[in-house]
C-alpha cells in the first residue's frame, strides 16, 4: 500500500509539472499583449517597455518558465492584472467560500445519491426506478446556471423564502461580524458561537448548494443503482435471502457495503466536475468564491489569475482522482495487486 501511494503521488507530481508547462505555454500564446492589459490601453511605449522588463517578458522563454516555476514554489504567483494584488492572496481569501459550497453540495449529493440508487435498485423497471432514472439523467443534463436562475425565481421571486445572492446578508456582516479563526466563514461562525451569522449563512448556502448538487447527485444515483444491481445478483445475496435475512438488512447492509466502492469512484469524479460547476453557480448566486473571480479574470484576460486558476483547478482534479485511486486500492485488494 505504501509503495502504491508513493508511486501514485510521484506520477501525480510529474503530471503536475507537465501541467505547469502547458499552463505556461498557454499564457505565452495570448494574442493580446499582457503589458498593455497591465498598464491600460493608453500607456506610452516607454511605460510599456518598463513594464515588460519589470514583469520579465524580455527574457528568453525557458528562463521565464524556470522563473515561473520558482515563483510557484516560493509563493510568488504574480499579481492579478485587474486588481493589482497578489494572485495567491486573491485566491486564498476566496477559496474557503468555494470549498464550503462544494462540500455542502457533495454532502447532499452523496447522501441522497446513494439512498436514491439503493431505492431504485429495489425493483428495476418499477415506478420508483423510473422516477429516479428521470431525476438522475435530468440532473446530469441540467445547465447549472439555468437551474440556479429557476430556483431563484421560485424560492426568492415567488415564495420569498430564501435570499437570492451572496454568502451573508449585509446586515449580518455589520451586526454580527464573523471572527476569523480558520478562514472558513460558516465553520468559524459555528465554532465561535455566532449562531445568527451561521443561520444566515446556511440560508444563503441552500440554493447554490442545491444547484451545484444536481449533476453529482445524478451521477452518484446512477452509479449506485448499477453497482447495487450487480451485487444483488451475486450468490451471497441469494444465500442471505434464502436464509431469510430481512430484505432491508440484505439491501442496506450486506449489498450496499459491496456496492459502495464503485460509487466512491464516481463521488471523486463528480466532485472534480462540480469544481467547474462552481464557476457558474457562483456567478449566478454572486457567491464570493474562486469561480466568480475566475470568470471575471477570463473575460478580462487577466492572465496571471487565469494561470493560477487553471493550475488550481488541475490540482484539485488531480487530487480528487488520486484520492479515488487510493480509496479504491484500500477497499479492493485486486486493485492493489495490479
Amino acid at each position, binding site marked *: 500500500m505504501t509503495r502504491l501511494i508513493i508511486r501514485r503521488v510521484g506520477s501525480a507530481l510529474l503530471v503536475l509539472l507537465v501541467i505547469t508547462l502547458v499552463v505556461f505555454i498557454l499564457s505565452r500564446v495570448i*494574442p493580446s499583449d499582457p503589458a498593455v492589459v497591465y498598464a491600460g490601453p493608453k500607456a506610452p511605449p516607454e511605460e510599456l517597455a518598463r513594464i515588460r522588463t519589470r514583469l520579465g517578458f524580455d527574457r528568453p522563454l525557458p528562463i521565464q518558465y524556470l522563473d515561473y516555476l520558482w515563483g510557484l514554489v516560493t509563493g510568488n504567483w504574480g499579481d492579478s492584472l485587474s486588481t493589482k494584488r497578489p494572485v495567491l492572496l486573491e485566491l486564498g481569501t476566496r477559496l474557503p467560500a468555494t470549498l464550503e459550497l462544494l462540500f455542502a453540495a457533495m454532502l447532499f449529493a452523496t447522501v441522497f445519491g446513494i439512498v436514491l440508487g439503493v431505492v431504485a435498485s429495489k425493483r428495476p423497471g418499477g415506478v420508483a426506478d423510473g422516477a429516479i432514472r428521470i431525476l438522475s439523467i435530468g440532473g446530469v443534463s441540467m445547465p447549472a*446556471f439555468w437551474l440556479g436562475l429557476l430556483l431563484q425565481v421560485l424560492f426568492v421571486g415567488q415564495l420569498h423564502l430564501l435570499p437570492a445572492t451572496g454568502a451573508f446578508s449585509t446586515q449580518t456582516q455589520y451586526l454580527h461580524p464573523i471572527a476569523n479563526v480558520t478562514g472558513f466563514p460558516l465553520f468559524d461562525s459555528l465554532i465561535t458561537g455566532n449562531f445568527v451569522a451561521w443561520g444566515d449563512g446556511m440560508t444563503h448556502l441552500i440554493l447554490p448548494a442545491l444547484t451545484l448538487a444536481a449533476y453529482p447527485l445524478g451521477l452518484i444515483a446512477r452509479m449506485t443503482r448499477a453497482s447495487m444491481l450487480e451485487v444483488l445478483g451475486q450468490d451471497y445475496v441469494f444465500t442471505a435471502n434464502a436464509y431469510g435475512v430481512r430484505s432491508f438488512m440484505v439491501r442496506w447492509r450486506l449489498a450496499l457495503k459491496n456496492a459502495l466502492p464503485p460509487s466512491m469512484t464516481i463521488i471523486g469524479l463528480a466532485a472534480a466536475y462540480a469544481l467547474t460547476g462552481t464557476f457558474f453557480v457562483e456567478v449566478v448566486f454572486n457567491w464570493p468564491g474562486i469561480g466568480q473571480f475566475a470568470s471575471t479574470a477570463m473575460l478580462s484576460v487577466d492572465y496571471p489569475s487565469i494561470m493560477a486558476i487553471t493550475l488550481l483547478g488541475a490540482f484539485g482534479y488531480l487530487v480528487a482522482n488520486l484520492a479515488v485511486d487510493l480509496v479504491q486500492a484500500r477497499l479492493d485488494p485486486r486493485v492493489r495487486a495490479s
Partner: protein
Amino acid sequence: MTATPTMTSATAALRPAAFSARDTGLSRLIRVLRTDWLAAAGLAIVLLVIVLAVFGQWIAPFPAQGLGETSAATRNLAPSVAHVLGTDQLGRDVLSRIIMGARPALVISLVVVFIAAVIGIPLGAIAGYRGGWLDDVLMRVTEVFQAFPPLLLAMVTVAILGPSLFNAGLALAIAWWPWYARLVRAEARSLRDRPFVEAARAIGVPAWRIVSVHILRNCMTPVLVQATVDIGAVVLAAGSLAFLGLGAQPPSPDWGLMVAEGRGQIFTYWWISTFPGLAIFATVLGFNLIGDALRDLFDPRQVKR
C-alpha cells in the same frame, strides 16, 4: 424483471458472442425504443431539434428577429398569442430566437464531436494496436489533457484565444479528443489478440489495414454510444461558455447567451432566460436519454431491465 443469480460473470462474458454481428444497429435500436418510452422520448426531442435546425427559418414566426433584428415596439412582452414565449429586452421574439438557435447549437456540437473523434480514434487505435513506446507517449499526452476538468480547459483556451463561437468550438475539441483516444485504445488493446486479428496478421495483411478495418470496425459501438452522449454534453458546454461570455457573441441566437442576456431581469421578465435554458436542458436530456438506453443495450455487464 429482477436480477437473477444466474447473471454471473461467466454468462456475462459469453454475452457479446451471443449477439451476431448482424443484430447490432438498427433492429436492436427499434426494439429498445418500443420497450423504453424514455429513450423514445429522447429520440423525439432530438428529432425535433434536428427539424428545427434544418427548417428553422421556415418554422420561426419572426426569423429575422431570431437572428438579431431588434424591434423597439415589442420590448419585454410577456408570453401571449402573438409571442408565444414572450419577447426579450430588445423586442425580439424569444421563440424565434430559440428556433434559430437550434442550428448553431447542433452544428457546433457535431463539429466538435467529429473533430474530437477524428483526432482521437486513429491515435487510440494505433496506440492500442501497436503498444510499446508509441502507446506510452500517447497515453502520457492524453493524461496531461485529462488532468484538467474538460470545461475548465475549454474555458481557459477560449479566454486566451479570445471569446468567439469558433474559438469555443476549437477549445471544446481540444478538451474532448483525449477521451476518444483512450476509449478506442482500450478497445483496440482487447481486440489485438483476438483470433480474427491474429489470422489477418498471419496471412500478411498490412498493419494499417488491420487497424483501419479489423480494429476500428469493431470499436465503433462504444464510440457511437459515447458520441451520442457527447453531442449533448457539448451543447451544454458550449451553452455554458456562452453564458459566461466566452462563446457565441451577441446578437447570435445562442441559447446560453440568451440565458445570460435575461439574467438581469429574471424576477420581472422571467421568460427571457427561462425558455432558452429549457431548450438547452431538453436537448441535452434528449441525447442523454438515447445514450443511456444505448449503453444499457451494449454494455454486457449491466443487468437488463
